[in-house]
């Protein structure tokens, strides 16, 4: 194809730049029905996503609600300076990134593993009932999950500590020690979300061509070999896409969950951007400052997702855009 295209290039006399607008209006006219169909979505994004972004302007002001955007004094980069010079900033960034890394390492592979395992289950009824059961935790709210953990783990009469005591071990105050916060956080996410996250992988697995498995069997592949050489490569694009999406949500660690776990003794490892924005912005009323923090968080997320996408393309995958 490339060889055939090449001679055509010199024939294009008109400079590209001038033709573009013409092409756009032409293509608009040509595909007007298609464009009409994306219009509602386009309007949705403008009104609910882009228009509110104008509110970010208050991060350059000392915003006072009763003065409004037009009357509030402009302060330039004051809030950004405060953000980057405060010792809290390093803590927030460290906690957020660490938790994110732990989520990627410990949580992300689990649904894939579970989906592949479920796929190997031959008995249909058994498989379906397992699937239903592992979906259930997803529908519970964080409040309930954190409360359950509290009941299990507290020192005065919690089941886990009673077992530890009965085995002659030292009681552990899980809820107040900083070193237990992260494992607890990740474990709760795994418990709640692992089943639900298998859905997409299971869907991807069902479309794998069965002939591939048959061919592998002919070559004498064992079940493990089939998983490794057929199933996993087949769902690789899905895995990559989900990973990129996940990275896009890096700093979106789930406010509710962490807010419920935080207390005075584990704050140094548990305070993340979301909880900080909530306390500084909504509780203390520092609207401008917390908008600044949010803006920073959004920018970091954007950079990360672009980097991940580029990386995926480099390794020969499609990426998300």
């Amino acid at each position, binding site marked *: 194809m490339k060889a055939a295209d090449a001679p055509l290039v010199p024939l294009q006399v008109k400079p590209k730049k001038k033709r573009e607008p013409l092409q756009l209006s032409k293509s608009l006219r040509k595909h007007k029905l298609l464009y009409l169909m994306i219009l509602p979505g386009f309007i949705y994004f403008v009104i*609910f996503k882009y*228009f*509110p*972004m*104008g*509110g*970010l302007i*208050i991060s350059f002001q000392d*915003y*006072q*609600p*009763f*003065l*409004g*955007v037009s009357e509030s004094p402009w302060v330039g980069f004051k809030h950004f300076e405060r953000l980057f010079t*405060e*010792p809290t900033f390093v803590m927030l960034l460290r906690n957020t990134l660490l938790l994110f890394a732990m989520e990627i390492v410990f949580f992300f592979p689990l649904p894939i593993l579970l989906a592949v395992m479920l796929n190997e289950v031959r008995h249909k009824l058994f498989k379906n009932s397992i699937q239903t059961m592992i979906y259930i935790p997803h529908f519970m709210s964080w409040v309930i999950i954190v409360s359950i953990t*509290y009941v299990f783990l*507290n*020192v*005065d009469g919690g089941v886990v500590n009673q077992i530890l005591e009965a085995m002659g071990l030292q*009681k552990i*105050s899980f*809820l*107040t020690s900083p070193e237990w916060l992260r494992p607890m956080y990740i474990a709760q996410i795994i418990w709640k979300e692992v089943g639900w996250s298998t859905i997409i992988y299971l869907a991807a697995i069902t479309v794998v061509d069965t002939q591939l498995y048959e061919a592998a069997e002919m070559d004498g592949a064992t079940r493990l070999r089939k998983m490794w050489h057929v199933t996993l490569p087949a769902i690789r694009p899905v895995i990559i896409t989900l990973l990129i999406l996940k990275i896009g949500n890096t700093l*979106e660690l789930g*406010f509710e969950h962490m807010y419920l776990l935080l*207390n*005075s*003794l584990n*704050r*140094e490892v548990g305070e993340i951007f*979301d909880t900080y*924005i*909530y*306390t*500084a*912005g*909504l*509780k*203390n*009323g*520092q*609207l401008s400052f*917390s*908008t600044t*923090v*949010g*803006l920073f*968080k*959004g920018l970091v997320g954007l950079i990360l997702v672009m980097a991940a996408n580029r990386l995926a393309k480099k390794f020969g995958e499609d990426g998300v855009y």
Partner: protein
Amino acid sequence: MIALTLGCGLLLSACSGNQSGGSAGEAPAADGKATVTWLNILHTPSPPTETVLNKIEEATNTNIEFSWIPDASKEERLNTSLASDSLADIVTLTILDNSSVRNALKAGVFWEVGPYLDEFPNLAAISPEMRTSASIDGKLYGVPMQKQVARNGVIIRKDWLDKLGLEVPRTTDELMEVAKAFTEQDPDGNGVKDTTGFMDRSDLVYGAFKTLSSYFGTPSVWSVSEDGKVTPEFESEGYIKTMDYMKQLYEGGYINKDFAVTAKTDQQQNFSQGKAGIYVGALFDSKNLLNDARGVQDNMELVLVNDITSTGNESDRAIWSTTNGVGGLLSFPRSEVKDEEELKRVLKFVNDLMSEEVYALMTYGIEGVHYTADEKKAVTITDTSLWEQEVQPLAGSRPKEPGYEIHDANPLKAEADRLIQENTEFAVLNPMFSLESPTFSSQGSELQKIITDATYKYILGKISLDDFKAAVSSWRKAGGDQIIAEYEAAYKAVNG
């Protein structure tokens, strides 16, 4: 995301800000009553039912429309309400040190009511001290809610004391001995070491800590020396002593191990289930504690103590009072209450709420339905669960709590009321309460986290005293010094 939503909300509110309001100016409803809307704080799980409300509406000749804000999310909800200008004729402001609230008050969002109070008999009776305490920059931006000045004390299981042959403690050392005995000598006699002395919750102010700190002579939040130097409470000797005391409790196991993460409801439940024998908090909690223990701990007897000191000298008695008896402000936004005439109408309504009749309705309910009263106006609640549903939610909205003839016949409640009254004499006020520090308003609660966290860590033995002092100096550096300087200037301006 939060920031985006916030920005979105702000922009949208900016567009719609002018359309809201004006409900107070509407013509009276068909039944001839005017309508008052009230953005109020809810201290109970669910809002009150209509029964009592109808009676109050009759007594005040007003239709009341509540919008409730749960107490737990009051900062957030009040801030968004202020930011989006979705207020009501009356707004209950209980967090006067919050920066948005302070800014709104100073920016004149609410009416200054000082000059109008004397036109109404019940409002005129508000004492000058109360008015000063509730003022900001010398101006009163709402009707102060009058509460008891200092209501905290120690509640102890009398039956356990008797069983172990102990006296009611009068000093902190004796209290420690009692806590120790309650932990180690099996006061419930079930043969298992399953009780602790204290049952505390994750609250350094309304839990045990602050009350104990008063016993060690700690100032309330701030102290001012004679030459006008301002010092925070946590730099005082008493504060360190209190931390050591709590540390000793924790290390000995004389307090519930998880107190740093225990919620108030769990604390009270555990106490009522007989897991511990000492409760530090509001003295009137004793009545509920005993009520909840019915059927679980039937031999529970409680004794209330409010005269503990660390030295044993009567002259050292002290008990903190953070809010100086001001429970908050009932404020009237200019956007809703358009003119003086309306303001007077709403003030008249608040005035009527303070009558003995309405006070009885909001406190005890309807006679014959919720309570019975004898000729001395001593009230016995007859149906506690009905009272909890229909009356209790209203009790938090009373503009004035002390000073009525009608009273509770329950001996424990009467005793609590008596001791709380007695506390007034020994109350340690917060000298900075009505003064202004912009840094404190905007960053105070964030900075306080540094101290709160360090205090807990010290008590749990995770950091040393030097580490705590380092935390204090980082508090000073992060804005504390500025707060102190601002308070000193404000104090000088007022007191010369």
